Every structure is written in structure tokens, then in C-alpha cells.
């Protein structure tokens, strides 16, 4: 199977772990790579993603059937668009419960769409259990733990076993506190080649931000390759099994 497009779900059952920043970075990464991208903001409150990427973001909800139809029917629609979901913590359980019931991952695979879950790891048991649940119930999706270095040294990594043959831990390096004020005020795009100019950023600050961004984009490229590799592996297994 050759995947035509991908859906990446940025998820954690915990609030304030950097999901929206990660979703912004990922969306801008795909834009930077010249892909068509649609982002879905599933946060009930501030809709931060929609504020930063208003032209690329669709706000969505999974708390009623109409919202679920609008979201999932759109996700598996026949179009070559890369999709990024910023899954708010309050929608985590409902989203994956519906996805499981309607066989979302399998349907996506049937339509040559790769599904990846980026799971921000934290030491709490709720997150550990949620990660384990995803491993069991969404085994055909690419599950990648994300270590947001801003949250600490990640001593709890061993609670999040990697999937054999799957991606390693995606590292999200901490951004210097002085830089955060520039990127946390919309509008701001990481995909913009003249990054930081609109925010009147000093040149050395801009180059530090670009260094940070390069590290993250490198992690995303590695993840892309892993997804591709998993696809090739499943194709080979499929081919040898027939």
C-alpha cells in the first residue's frame, strides 16, 4: 500500500502539555514542505490553533453526532491533503472512543491514508494508561511518544514503551523563555521564510529560533520516514503473504 496522504493526531489526556504548539509546528512543517494542509482544532476553549492558522484551521467537536460526522467524514474524504488534529484533552476519550467504534484507522488505511498519533508523555498514570490503551486499540496506527523538554527531563520515558519497528521518541526541544513571547502571539507562522520579521525579532533571536525549528523539523522528517518505512514493511508483509 502506498499512502497518499496522512492524518496526524496530536494528543494527550492532560491539559497544558504543549499539544497546540506541536500541532502548529507540524502544520507549518507540512506547509514548509509544500504540502496542502488542513488543521483541525478540537479544543473546546480558546481555539488557539485557529487563531494562529485561521486560513488552515477548521474548528471541530466530537461531543455530538453532527460534529463527529463533520470531522471524521472530512478526515477520510478523498483528497490529497495532509491533516493535523489538535486534540484537546477534554475531547481525548470521546475522540478515540468514536474512532474505535467506527473503525476509523482501518477505513483510513483502506483509503491509503496513514494515521499517526503523537502522544505527549507525562509522568501521570492517566497518561500512561491512555498510551497503553492506544497501543492496544489502535495498533495499526503509527504511535509516537513525544517528549516536550519544556516539561522536564523525561525520566518517565520508560513508562511509554516504543512500538517495535515504530518511531522512536519525538523530541520537542525547549525554547528559550525569551523567545516564547514572539511565537505565542498570533499571527505567527513557522512556515514563513521571513520568520520573525513581522514580530520585529532581533537577528540573533531569529537565528536561535531557526536553529530550534530545524531541530524540530528534523524530528518530523524522521517521523515521516518512519511512517513510510512502516508502510513499506506492511506492503512487503502483505506481498509475501499472498
Amino acid at each position, binding site marked *: 500500500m502506498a499512502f497518499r496522504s496522512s492524518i496526524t493526531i496530536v494528543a494527550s489526556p492532560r491539559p497544558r502539555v504543549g499539544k497546540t504548539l506541536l500541532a502548529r509546528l507540524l502544520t507549518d512543517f507540512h506547509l514548509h514542505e509544500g504540502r496542502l494542509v488542513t488543521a483541525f482544532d478540537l479544543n473546546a476553549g480558546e481555539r488557539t490553533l485557529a487563531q494562529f492558522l485561521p486560513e488552515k484551521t477548521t474548528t471541530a467537536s466530537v461531543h455530538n*453526532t*453532527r460534529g*463527529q*460526522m463533520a470531522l*471524521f*467524514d472530512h478526515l*477520510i474524504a478523498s483528497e490529497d491533503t495532509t491533516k493535523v488534529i489538535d486534540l484537546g484533552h477534554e475531547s481525548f476519550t470521546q475522540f478515540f472512543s*468514536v474512532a474505535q*467504534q*467506527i*473503525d*476509523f484507522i482501518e*477505513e483510513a488505511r483502506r483509503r491509503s491514508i496513514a494515521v499517526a498519533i503523537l502522544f505527549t508523555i507525562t509522568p501521570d498514570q492517566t497518561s500512561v494508561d491512555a498510551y497503553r490503551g492506544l497501543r492496544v486499540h489502535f495498533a495499526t496506527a503509527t504511535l509516537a511518544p513525544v517528549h516536550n523538554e519544556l516539561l522536564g527531563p523525561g525520566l518517565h520515558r520508560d513508562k511509554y514503551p516504543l512500538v517495535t519497528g515504530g518511531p522512536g521518541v519525538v523530541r520537542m526541544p525547549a525554547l528559550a523563555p525569551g523567545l516564547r513571547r514572539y511565537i505565542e502571539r498570533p499571527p505567527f507562522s513557522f512556515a514563513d521564510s521571513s520568520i520573525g520579521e513581522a514580530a520585529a525579532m532581533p537577528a540573533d533571536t531569529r537565528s536561535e529560533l531557526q536553529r530550534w525549528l530545524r531541530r524540530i523539523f528534523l524530528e518530523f522528517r524522521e517521523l515521516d520516514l518512519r511512517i513510510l518505512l512502516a508502510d513499506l514493511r506492511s506492503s512487503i508483509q502483505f506481498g509475501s503473504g499472498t
Partner: protein
Amino acid sequence: MARPAVILVGADKGGVGKTTVARTLIDYFGAHQTPTRAFDTEAPRGTLKRFHPELTEVVDVTSVSDQMKIFDTLGSADAKVTVIDVRAGLLSSTLQALTDIGFLESAKKGQITFAVFHILGSSIASLQEIAETARVVGDANYFLVKNFINNTTFFEWDPATYNSYFKKIKGAEEITIPKLNEMAYEQVEVASVPFVSFIGNKGAKGEPANNSFVLRGYVRHWLGNVWGEFDRVKLVDLVSPKIESNVRQVAG
């Protein structure tokens, strides 16, 4: 030749989802390649016929000519299974009529496989109905169906009372039909197609439809659970012992 099977689906009050259960049965046997025909007793125009027009005939089960149409053809019909959706309020009288024509006697002798799906409502009156039917069904395979499809709550039921009725029927088994998402249920109603057609995104004549993936997913998941219940009570073995029973993926 395998002996014919008759499945009576009834309830003593309307609105408990009797026709829905009949529809799941027809889909289930269809998935198991078991030739099935159905009779809808909601004369003059039946709901079951709307969903399964090719297989269903509308009859008046109290009339002798229609009784002949159903029961005199059991041995000669191509269909191996006959599903009869009995109109609300007619379950007891239908069973009585079956006794009168000697049908229940034939079932007792093993010439015909006979099963009753008694769809339960949420009230005590419905439980009293069990006692009444128990008197006539004898050795039939009796399934008490708790239908939650419309989110029926069984609050009014005291478990001790329920069990006292339940135990009156020798070998009775309980089947639970889970709740189906309301919008998914409504859309299948609007589409007027079998559940499996809705899941397969097909219209009434097999043409491609444009049903929501989410709603199809809900129906597939629900139907899988319903068929899981039918598998659990070994329904296929009952009507056709040789056929492989695990074909739920057909719903996909």
C-alpha cells in the same frame, strides 16, 4: 433435506423495536448465506416490507388463507428460514393459532425448528405477557430480547420479579440488543434499506449511496454486537447446524 425453521418475532405492545430485531435477523441469515423469507403481519402495509421488499410478504396471520400461505409452504419454499414479524398485540393469539393448526405439535416432533423472539418492553405488563406465552410455546426455542436500541430503560423491572417470569419458560435465553446512535438509526430509517446495505453504502437497488462514514461505522459496530448476541445463542446452529457461524465481517 434440512428441516425448515420458523422464527416468530413478537411483542405484546408496539414501539419496542420488534421490526428492528426482525431486520437484524434477516441481515444475519443473509450474511450466513441462509435463504430466508419474511412475513410482515402489519397489514395492509408493513414496515418490514419497506426494508426488505424482495423477501417480505405482508399477511394477515389470523386469516386461514394467509396461514396456509405461510405454513403449507414451509417444506416447498426455497427459503430455509421463515421470519414472521408479528404485529403488536398478536403474539399470544398467533401462538394460539399455531397450536390450533398443529404447528406446535410438528415442532415438538422435530419436523420443524421453531423459535420465538419475544421483544420485551419496559413495563410489567410486558412481563405478564411472558407468563401467558410460556403456557403455549412448550418446547420452542424461546428468546427474551431486551431491546435497548431506543434507549429503553428497564427501571420498572424488579430483578426478582423478572426472574420469576423468566424461569417459567424452560430453556429460555436472554438476548440484549444494545443502543444504536439515534442519528444513525434515523438515517437507516430514511434510507429504507437493510442495515448491511447502509453499512456497505448501498441504496435499495444496490446503487452507490452517500451515507456518512461515521453513521455507517456506528451501525456496523452496533450490528456486530447484535450478531454477536445471535452467535452467542448459536442461532445459526439452531436453523442450520453445518454453516460456519462467524461471518460478522460481512457487515464491513
